[in-house]
């Protein structure tokens, strides 16, 4: 077995440009966690089913375990660490997750937040059915999902509406 040769990639992650030499087989999630120490993105099923590793790639949610870092060359990646508007703050959805107890062990949470942020980016006031559809891509073993739906409805309710 020969050692795979490395390739240079340039990836914007949470607004910062990173250049690294990586093996072509390095997955995007391993790149984020091992090269950039962004451990908020989690590895779950490793075959695209659970959604724990979800990140935004050019603003669209993708499974970072199912693509290689070299495929993200030149692209924009947002991880859970990049969702808050600024350091020390929470996004509305992050805040609602805390308020509505939309998590327990927290392991699926980064992927859930990515799915919810992606939804709200194009549907600012989703229906409950749209929220359920958006998070149907992600597995949570603790909550039973109801509080996650509640959190997104709470975060996106129109002014004056009963959340």
């Amino acid at each position: 077995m020969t050692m795979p040769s490395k390739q240079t990639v340039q990836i914007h992650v949470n607004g910062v440009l990173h250049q690294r030499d990586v093996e072509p087989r390095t997955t995007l999630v391993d790149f984020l966690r091992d090269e950039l120490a962004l451990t908020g993105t989690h590895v779950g099923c490793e075959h695209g089913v659970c959604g724990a590793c979800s990140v935004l790639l050019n603003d669209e949610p993708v499974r970072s375990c199912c693509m290689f870092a070299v495929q993200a060359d030149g692209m924009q990646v947002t991880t859970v660490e990049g969702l808050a508007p600024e350091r020390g703050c929470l996004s509305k959805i992050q805040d609602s997750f805390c308020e509505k107890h939309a998590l327990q062990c927290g392991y699926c949470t980064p992927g859930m937040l990515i799915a919810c942020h992606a939804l709200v980016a194009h549907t600012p006031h989703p229906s409950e059915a749209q929220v359920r559809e958006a998070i149907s891509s992600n597995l949570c073993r603790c909550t039973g999902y109801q509080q996650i739906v509640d959190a997104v409805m709470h975060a996106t309710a129109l002014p004056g509406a009963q959340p």
Partner: protein
Amino acid sequence: MSDAAPFRYIGKHRRAVEHKRFVVGQGHYAADIHRQGMLHVALVASPYASAKILSIDASQALAMPGVHAVVTGAELRAATDPVLPGVDAPQVTRFPMASDVARYAGEWVAAVVAETRALAEDAAELVMVEYEQTAHIIDPEAALHSDAPLVHPAHGSNLIFDRKFVWGPVEEDFAQCDHQLSYRVRWARNATVPIETFAVACEWNDATEVLDVWASIQMPKFPDQLAKALRLPGNGVRVHFDVDVGGSYGVKRGLKHSIMVGYLAKKLGRPVRFVEDRLENMRGGDMQGPDRMFDVTLGFQNDGTLRTMRMRALDDIGAYSGRSPLQLGKPVGAIVGPYRIQSVEYHAMAVMTHKTPQEAVRGFGQAPTNYALETGIDKVARFLKMDRIELRRRNLIGKDEFPYLIPSGTHYDSGDYATVMDKALNAAPLTHIVQERDRLRAQGMLAGIGISTCLEPSGGNSSFEPLFNPKNQTTTWMDSCLVRVDLSGTVTALMATSTSGQAHETLVSTVVAEILHRAPDSIRVIHADSLNALPSNSPVGSRMAIMLGGAAAGAAKKFANSCCKLRRTT
């Protein structure tokens, strides 16, 4: 509590302390642990359920640059002590890896240690293992036959636990019943499958002779058992409990993983980490739960009154025994569920087969037992042509009957089961789902509504341990909390267990704040390590609100009382 002052913080809405770090991606899981010079592990696993291991050739793997070691089961067996089963079966020994024979498909045969996990996986593919397949047995009933292949020949049988309990006049009660119904029900092997696989990192220090351990565990007495298996003194292992566990639901045991990684870290003098991939997790990790065959006979009257029960539970624990046979023990504490059944015969049997070993799964054996009992209640209702809800109501222990002594010796302390059932039926609501069922059936679809009660013991005292193993001298399952006040007057509470989503920091800070009249968010709660905190029995058996909450309140009260004394004397 009726005459106590109302709580200020307990039972009130409060954001969980832990949530903030999780929503910003600052959780601290075992796979996030990085130590300088850390090496990584990949496993070679048996593809056969039953096989002799004839030879292992690791020369090609070891020749790869970046590969530090290939360790076999034989090496590990010589250097560690076995983990013994929860029941009295000293010949059923268990080591992290197979040495002479493999007893289930997925059992670890060799561990490869390399600079990266990817490299370790490359090298694992080059480890050549020669097997000779041997006869296997996977049917628990067939495993009881005298000619069945033996999973552990030294034990002499595949039966590892067999005890018949008789509580009350079962024979007489059956003789006096109008009817009896017998049935078989199967609880198929189940798993809770946390999104996080098991992960552990270990680092050995030659100078201090301490093994530091970070692991995604939910395991009673983990530090003690790990030290014992590694032949280290109890204070030679420091388990760090400030590791967030990405879900457990009972299964994050990880003793074999941690013994293996602890051994590798000590052998190589380098930090070593093992993070299961999903395949390692599902076939050879601590992931699979009860797998039971129930044969039940219920004795009852024409009016639906349940009188007595015979239950034989045959549990297929797989190839090794951890705490799995004890999962037949917990249901002893609630063997009749919420019903007035006055006598019971319970025949608990645990059998070994060539399957992945069974480990603790949420409910610790109670859920299968509830399922077996509830299946029977439906059968009795059908037999008597009685409404299944009415039948249940008729047999529920009444709210004026508590404390209620069940035949197996448990006192149910309190309850109002009829009200709980009303609330559940109204919450559904039943009338609505019946209409929905009928609508679907009218369209030619199949639809049905399941009705079930469920009674589960909490407080997790493991009193079934000595019941199932007379040599086990466990008498109590304490928990503890250390409350400190610093010179600036702020309060810190230490607990000695990791958390897999139960929000113990929130629990402890709320309770301590209540007692000490402080703002809950001002109380810092630390997950200490096994060398600097008081002991804990870990968050199993729905026990922490009772046990850790009680310990935190007790510690805070002790402190509050001594402060008052001080004030009085100055």
